[in-house]
């Protein structure tokens, strides 16, 4: 079982908490409250998207066909895999397997980077086809002005998501470095868990972005 002297030696218990359990509960609740703010933050974008898709359904469907569904689906699978490795990393921390923990954290970072690389490729493709609003947007013949609104949402939503992934990869790097130094084990793994919550949340946002951006009008 966990040896309190080990966790004390790790300097794990902050002075203002009574015990590790209180600290653990506080940190976990804190991350969940933060995720609630993130739901509302992204929620604003989803609100705008919903209003305009409701107003201009055919133009949105038209616009969505400019996105490559296969690439989107594969990228979704990559991100889901990174959530798997993240969950397994938490398990490794809970069972005090240091090497597995570091390896799985690095795998998560790698999969996240692959996702971002694919997105960069997609963005470049849009740039080449003059579909980046405010940068080089050119309407195709017969296209309606609202087309740009779709692409504004495409770039804002996936861009904001990508920003969160970059931050997440950074956090994972810090956690991986600390894990390598033996900081986490069965008696103290909360930071790994809490980073995992953040990572899974970012994954959930993408789970909604994929069908809403890529899969409208795919049947035509």
């Amino acid at each position, binding site marked *: 079982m966990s040896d309190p002297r080990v966790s004390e030696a790790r300097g794990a218990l902050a002075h203002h908490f009574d015990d590790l359990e209180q600290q653990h509960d506080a940190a976990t*609740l804190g991350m969940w409250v933060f995720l609630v703010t993130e739901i509302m933050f992204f929620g604003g974008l989803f609100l705008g998207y919903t209003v305009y898709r409701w107003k201009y359904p055919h133009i949105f469907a038209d616009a969505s066909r400019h996105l490559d569904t296969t690439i989107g689906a594969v990228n979704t699978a990559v991100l889901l895999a990174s*959530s798997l490795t993240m969950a397994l990393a938490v398990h490794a921390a809970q069972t005090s397997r240091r090497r597995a923990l570091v390896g799985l954290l690095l795998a998560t970072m790698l999969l996240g980077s692959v996702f971002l690389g694919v997105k960069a490729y997609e963005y470049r493709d849009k740039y080449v086809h003059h579909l980046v609003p405010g940068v080089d947007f050119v309407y195709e013949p017969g296209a309606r002005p609202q087309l740009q609104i779709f692409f504004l949402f495409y770039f804002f939503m996936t861009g904001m998501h990508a920003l969160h992934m970059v931050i997440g990869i950074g956090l994972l790097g810090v956690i991986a470095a600390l894990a390598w130094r033996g900081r986490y084990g069965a008696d103290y793994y909360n930071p790994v868990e809490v980073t995992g919550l953040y990572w899974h949340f970012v994954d959930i946002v993408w*789970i909604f972005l994929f069908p809403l951006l890529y899969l409208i009008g795919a049947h*035509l």
Partner: protein
Amino acid sequence: MSGHIVSPKLYYGIFAALLVLTAATTGAARFDLGPMNVVIALAIAGCKALLVALFFMHVRYSKPLVWVAAASGLLWLAIMLALTLTDYYSREWFPAPRGW
């Protein structure tokens, strides 16, 4: 310190389910089901999100307070969407009278 340890087998199982659902939603999009397209897409996305939340994020094994926090976030998003849409949805109901 308390903490539920979930078996890796369950994680692999959930991951497999997530991949199947991703394939399903991509496949379903290829058929023209009218208004049901978006319903199905959101339902599948909702299932995937639920699986990630319950099992990867351990909500299934967490205190009720965590459930309440997660549910509140979703509820508030729903409130924001629903009330805003009452405006857009009902704007056409009442065209401006002639002479305005």
